[in-house]
C-alpha cells in the first residue's frame, strides 16, 4: 500500500521546468528522505504533494487523493512541520495544540484528553500554560512534531525539521519519528544533514528537477562505491547545471 505515488510529475514556470517528470512512490509507514541541492526543485514538488500548488503535467496521489482534484482532502490527511515555522510563539502550548487540532477539524472534546496524553508523554504537562516563546528550542521542536501528527494524519511532511538543534535533542527527535513510523504514519522528510538522510528507509536525490537516484542509503553508498551519503550527494549534485 502506497501513501504517495508520483508518475512523471512536472511543474513548469513559463519556460523553466522546476520539477521534471519525477516518478516515485512512498510506502505506508516508510521514512522517506527527499534530498537535493538548493534550487533542485524539492520545495516545488513538496508544495504539489501538500495540495498547495497544481502540477503542469503528470499524475500524483497523496494518501489516495488526486493532486489536481482533491487538494482539500489531501490537506486534511497530512501533517506539516518545518524548522522555519511551526508553532505560534505568542500562544501558549495548549493554545497552539487547540488551534491546530481545531484547524484539522477535531472537536474540543477530542482535543482535551488527547492533549493531556501528549503533554504527559513529552514531559511537558507542567508547561501547558506557558508561552511557546519561553520554551527551549529542543522542546519546541518536539512539541511541533507532536502537534503536526496530533490529528493522526496518514503522512507527515517534515521540511528541514532539525537544523540548528543540538545532537542529543536531534536524536530524541528521530526516535519520535521512528515511533510515529512504527504506528504506520508515513514520514516524508527533507534535510541537509547527510547523516540524517541515513536514518531514512529510502531516499531520493533531486538534481535539476529530476530524481537522479532513489534507493536505501546503504545501497546508494554501495552503488557509488563511497563511504558516506555526503559523497553520494556530491557525486550526483556537482553535475547540476542549474545555478539555483
Amino acid at each position, binding site marked *: 500500500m502506497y501513501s504517495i505515488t508520483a508518475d512523471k510529475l512536472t511543474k513548469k514556470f513559463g519556460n523553466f521546468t522546476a520539477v521534471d517528470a519525477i516518478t516515485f512512490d512512498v510506502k505506508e509507514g516508510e521514512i522517506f528522505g527527499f534530498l537535493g*541541492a538548493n534550487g533542485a526543485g524539492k520545495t516545488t514538488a513538496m508544495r504539489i504533494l501538500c495540495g498547495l500548488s497544481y502540477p503542469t503535467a503528470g499524475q500524483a496521489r497523496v494518501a489516495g487523493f488526486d493532486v489536481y482534484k482533491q487538494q482539500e482532502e489531501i490537506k486534511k490527511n497530512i501533517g506539516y512541520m518545518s524548522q522555519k515555522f511551526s508553532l505560534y510563539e505568542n500562544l501558549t502550548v495548549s493554545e497552539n495544540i487547540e488551534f491546530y487540532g481545531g484547524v484539522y477539524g477535531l472537536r474540543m472534546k477530542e482535543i482535551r484528553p488527547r492533549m493531556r496524553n501528549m503533554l504527559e508523554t513529552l514531559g511537558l504537562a507542567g508547561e501547558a500554560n506557558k508561552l511557546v516563546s519561553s520554551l527551549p528550542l529542543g522542546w519546541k521542536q518536539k512539541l511541533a512534531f507532536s502537534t503536526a501528527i496530533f490529528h493522526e494524519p496518514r503522512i507527515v511532511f517534515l521540511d528541514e525539521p532539525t537544523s540548528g538543534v543540538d545532537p542529543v535533542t536531534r536524536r530524541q527527535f528521530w526516535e519520535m519519528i521512528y515511533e510515529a513510523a512504527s504506528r504506520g504514519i508515513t514520514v516524508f522528510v527533507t534535510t541537509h544533514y547527510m*547523516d540524517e538522510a541515513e536514518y531514512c528507509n529510502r531516499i531520493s536525490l533531486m538534481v535539476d528537477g529530476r530524481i537522479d537516484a532513489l534507493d536505501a542509503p546503504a545501497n546508494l553508498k554501495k552503488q557509488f562505491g563511497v563511504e558516506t551519503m555526503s559523497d553520494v550527494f556530491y557525486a550526483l549534485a556537482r553535475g547540476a547545471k542549474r545555478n*539555483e
Partner: protein
Amino acid sequence: MNYIELHNISKTYDKGKVLAVNNISLSVSEGEIFGLIGPDGAGKTSIFRMLTTLIIPDSGSAKVLGYDVVKDFRQIRNEVGYMPGRFSLYPDLSVEENLRFYATMFGTTIEENYHLIRDIYVQIEAFGKRKAGQLSGGMKQKLALCCALIHKPKVLFLDEPTTGIDPVSRKELWEMLRKLKTENICIFVSTPYMDEALQCDRIALIQQGEILSIDSPQAVVGQFDKFIYAVSSDDTYKQLKVLMQYPERLNSYPFGEFAHLVVAGELDEIRLGEFLKNNGLNDIRINRINATIEDCFIDLSRQTKV
C-alpha cells in the same frame, strides 16, 4: 601574535536573566581556521558580536589584532571582515553596487583585491545587475562573503556561513576558506554541522554558553576515553529500545544507518550479538569504531549536565 584573544568573557541579556556566554577564554593565531561548533542558542552569535564590536561584554576582556574590543572598536572595524548569520546586505542595491559600496566604505576598490574574491565572484558575476534581495539563498551567501573580503581583512568572521546551504555548496565554501588561509587571513567561523569541525585547525565545542572542549579536531576525538560499537539490524526502532536494556550500556543513540552503543571498555561482541538476537533482531552487524566529533559532543554534553 594572537589575532583573537578572549579572557573570561561573559554576556547576559534581559537584565542578567539570560546567560548567553559564560566565562569563555580562548585565543586564535595568525592564519588559523578556528571553528565554534554548537547548536542554536549556544552563544556563538553573541561571541561574534562582541568580537566585531557590535555589543559589549558584561565582564572579561577581548582583543582582536591586539586592539581592545571596547576601547579600540574603530581600529577593529577597519581591519576585520564580518559575515553575519542573517543576510544583511542592501536588498535594493544590485550585486555590483553592494560590492562597490563595501569596497568604497573601506577605502579600496574592487579591482585592488579582486584576486581574493575571484573564485566566488565568478559564480555570481552573471547576476551582477540583479538586486541582492532577489538572489537565491546560496548566491546571497556568496555575495556576502565577497563583501566581507573585499577590503582584504586580516581576520574574517563568518557566523554560520553554511547553514541552510546544500552539501555541494558547503564543500565549495570550505575549499575556499582553506585557500584564504594561505593568504594568512585568520578565519573565525561557526557552524552547527558537527562534521565540518574536521575542516578547522582548532575547534571549540560550545553549548549553553560554555566551552565543552577546545583543541584540534583530531585531539578532541583522541580524548574520547570510551568504546563505541556501531550496531545495525533489520529493525532500527526496535534495536534502539533493545540497546537501552544492554547491561554494560553507558549510552546509545541512532547514528545514521547504525546505532552507536557506548561502553566503558572492550565488549564481547558475540555476547552482544546474542543479546540482540534473543530480543528478536536479525541481520545483526557489530563493529567497533572510532568516535566522531558528534560522539564527543554528545558525551561531553552529558557530562556537563550531570
